[in-house]
């Protein structure tokens, strides 16, 4: 009896060893947390140059004041043919094993984007550590490495800051989208064109990577979200900016909030309306072998500022402004649409919409859809509503 109890005890102890699950253990203090990844193509060798932005934990503590003089991040740059190869090769430089589950940002270098970026996305899908909801940005007029090197004010980890920048501007200004790796893969496999926000550097890297650059009120080097990179068949084709870019967002139904400066009777662009709701509906129809795109936009906004003397207590004045709003939206959408037609690239996903609704017809036009798209006509309908005028009804006036 006694031996039986003893053997059971031994068995329990042995089993509990299994339950601790130490086989795959990785301790936090043996990991280097990667916050951002940048990928460029090295032109002469064809290899990838992968840049890792690694967080220095002691330098990013939330307590204010310079506790250490260490930079909050370190940069490792590695050349390899594959991304995974690069991240393992980085072990030669890093003191700890790189850990990717918290990567917030992927910067695609312009050089890589021009040659097609689909190959580097595979590891994001396949790996269990890399996340699909990492934000993607394309570096503009510079390489991904430099973008990741620059320190940002306010946010101690620049990758997190850039992710927030992309999100913020896409939500309140609406000129650029915030795109994740998941969405990028979806767009690439969907076959159509697509756009990704661009990121650009003002100033130079040498200054920007020094902590000293943050010791002044205006940082020496700054990084800003700028325009949209247009991809056709997975390759960077051109950049769109300003009204073209926002028009594209409108067609894609990605406007959350944006500002429209409207003309009023006496002054141009003097009334600011904040669009707070916008919904786009698309219908594609083929007539005589050419597509007709019915795009219907409903938008609602609040009047937030007026510098011109309009009598807002009058219904017809509001109507006029609404008409003005519709006109402006129409103009931007048409501009964006014409730009896409001129470039012969359907980055509004109109082709996929047609494919979804009418797969039989799509088969016939699939092969040269971009050319057919370029000849299509746009039937645009915009309905705008101004719902509120803020804390005052009529604007202030100085007696003459």
């Amino acid at each position, binding site marked *: 009896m006694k031996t039986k109890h003893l053997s059971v005890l031994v068995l329990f102890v042995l089993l509990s060893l*299994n339950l601790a699950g130490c*086989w795959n253990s990785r301790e936090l203090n043996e990991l280097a947390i990667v916050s951002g990844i940048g990928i460029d193509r090295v032109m002469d060798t064809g290899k990838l140059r992968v840049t890792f932005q690694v967080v220095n934990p002691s330098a990013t503590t939330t307590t204010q004041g310079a506790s250490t003089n260490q930079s909050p991040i370190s940069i490792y740059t590695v050349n390899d043919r594959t991304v995974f190869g690069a991240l393992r090769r980085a072990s030669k430089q890093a003191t700890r094993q790189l850990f990717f589950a918290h990567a917030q940002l992927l910067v695609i270098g312009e050089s890589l984007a021009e040659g097609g970026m689909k190959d580097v996305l595979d590891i994001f899908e396949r790996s*269990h550590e890399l996340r699909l*909801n990492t934000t993607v940005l394309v570096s503009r007029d510079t390489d991904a490495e430099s973008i990741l090197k620059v320190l940002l004010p306010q946010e101690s980890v620049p990758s997190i800051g850039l992710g927030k920048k992309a999100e913020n501007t896409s939500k309140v200004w609406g000129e650029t989208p915030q795109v994740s790796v998941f969405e990028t893969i*979806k767009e690439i*496999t*969907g076959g159509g064109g697509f756009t990704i926000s661009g990121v650009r550097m003002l100033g130079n890297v040498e200054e920007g990577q020094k902590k000293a650059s943050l010791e002044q009120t205006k940082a020496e080097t700054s990084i800003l979200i700028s325009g949209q990179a247009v991809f056709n068949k997975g390759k960077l084709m051109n950049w769109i900016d300003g009204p073209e870019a926002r028009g594209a967002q409108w067609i894609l139904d990605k406007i959350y909030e944006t500002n429209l400066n409207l003309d009023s009777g006496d002054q141009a662009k003097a009334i600011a309306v904040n669009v707070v709701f916008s919904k786009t509906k698309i219908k594609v129809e083929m007539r005589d072998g050419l597509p007709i795109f019915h795009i219907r936009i409903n938008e609602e906004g609040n009047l937030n500022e007026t510098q011109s003397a309009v009598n807002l207590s009058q219904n017809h004045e509001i109507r006029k402004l609404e008409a003005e709003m519709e006109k402006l939206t129409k103009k931007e959408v048409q501009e964006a649409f014409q730009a896409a037609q001129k470039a012969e690239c359907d980055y509004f996903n109109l082709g996929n919409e047609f494919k979804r*609704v009418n797969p039989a017809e799509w088969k016939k036009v699939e092969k040269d859809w971009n050319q057919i798209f370029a000849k299509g006509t746009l039937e645009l309908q915009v309905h705008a509503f101004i719902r509120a005028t803020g804390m005052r009804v009529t604007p202030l006036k100085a007696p003459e």
Partner: protein
Amino acid sequence: MKKEIIGPSQMFAMIVLFEMGTAIVIPIGLESGHAVWLSILMALPGGVLLYLIYNDLYRQFPNLIISGYTRKILGKYIGWPLSLLYIPVLMFNGSRNLREAGDLLISASYDRTPILIINSIMIIAVMYILNKGIEVFARTAEIYFWIMMIMGLVCNGVVIMAGLVDFKNLFPLHYKDWMDALTSAYPNIWIFPFGELVCFTTVLPYLKKSGISGKMGVTAIILSGFLLCFTHAIEISVLGMDIYSRAAFPIYTTITLVNVANFIQRLDALVILTLIIGVFFKMSIYCFAATVITADLFKVKDYRRLVVPVGVIVLFTSFISAENYISHLNEGKVFLKYFLPAICAVVPILLFLVHRIRKRFGLYR
């Protein structure tokens, strides 16, 4: 049969957990494109019909398991070898479930742990519970049924809350989609997961009241069919057809995308838990069925004595059968096409018909 008895709600829970098992985690019915959810619904009536056949056989022989009445209906000389065939098929399918769970765990987080360790920990739990008997197992199922339901609710809830669902990926359905859905529903989804209920022919004799087996089983199958349909529809609507079809475990990819207000995220643990619970029950029932049939055929008095040998065979089959996950999947295609339908559908239907004919013409002595 013996003193062990199972209540109706326990039976219900066992059937639902069994159906959810692996079918909720791996992509099923890929031929049907974005209409997978439709083909699950199409396969559901067939699954119910098949269950009614098993149930009818059970009602005719309320004290016998499948190997028992196979011998009664087809005679000793055909029935015994035919019943013997059940054992390897059931054990192999059990081992496949084990392999899928092990592979998900390895590719999801335990990348350096050998599959032997992961699988053996799981099979030890199965052997333990079967050693305690089917009654204990059924009570466990009753508890885990609710855990599964709550986890399913949470998972689906957060995916919807995160605003990831895009119904454009599910509609519209064209004529071709309906045809594709039908061809993948029969026989593929009909057999996996619905036809696999053939295992329950060994569990049914333990029911407390035999009268409720039909109604309760059908309800459980319909519930699990709808749950499967709903979950796969959500997966496709989130991932889109392309990623869904390329993913090894679409539900895992779906849940990693969840991010509600930068606060609720990284819920992958829930998916892994779902899989482990589902596979545990599914595999246990497979092992149980194999054990009881062996005990019946070789006249072993207590089936519990066979639990360990069966478990060990299932464990080793699970990683010897295929050198990697790809060949495991390819094996599965062949297995699903030829072997499983024979055991799950052809033999029971044959038994059903032969029994009817013999009864009608008074051919039983």
